[in-house]
């Protein structure tokens, strides 16, 4: 099964579970499976149009899915997905 690494800020919504395993065949399906298992995380992953939030990046191993097939990227059994929140700020 593919594994999703849950970022620390969102673990409160997964009962402090750091990772989630899924048989999903695509990145999008895997994210949906995670949200189905932990409904409180839904709004932090998806916007109102059920798209993955703009501020999130998804990496498959060390590669951004945006340089692969985006949300349609296929998953293999030993793949590791990382959900990455945008980390930025400043006095601006």
């Amino acid at each position, binding site marked *: 099964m593919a594994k999703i690494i849950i970022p620390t800020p969102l673990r409160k919504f997964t009962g402090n579970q*750091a990772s989630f395993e899924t048989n999903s065949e695509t990145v999008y399906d895997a994210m949906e499976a995670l949200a189905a298992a932990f409904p409180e995380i839904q709004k932090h992953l998806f916007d109102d149009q059920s798209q993955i939030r703009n501020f999130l990046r998804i990496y498959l191993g060390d590669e951004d899915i945006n340089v692969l097939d985006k949300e349609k990227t296929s998953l293999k059994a030993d793949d590791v997905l990382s959900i990455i929140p945008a980390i930025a700020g400043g*006095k601006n």
Partner: protein
Amino acid sequence: MKEVKFTDQAIEEMHKHLVASYPHEGCGFFYGKIGDRKEIVEIREVENQNKTNPERIFEIAPIDYVKAERYAIENDLDLIGVYHSHPDHPAVPSATDLKFAQPNFSYVIVSIVKGEVAATSSWTLNEANKFIQEQRRKTNNKRLKN
């Protein structure tokens, strides 16, 4: 008020990094253990990826975030939050800080005025998605056990 504890060493290393980054904003992650309170024992510098306006903005590359999570797992630590500096500006969160703030993370802001540390504060989001200040204390624990 929520509480967050730092070792003297973690504070010193963070201040040293942010003074060296001046007049640009410096940034990094901090690690420790989350129990009844947050105890921070280690900081790690990260490169500010913003190259167009680094005096006012910091950005951390996604791959650096992936590495930070891995480092926490490999060293049996929790990734507790992010620190950054406000050069010649107060140590209070800006609208940009709020825009990108993550739930449950701590955000340490250090005001660097004319190249010297002027103030340090720690913040976290409340249930209403507003920043609230955390009380900052010292801890002598160099390395904490589970």
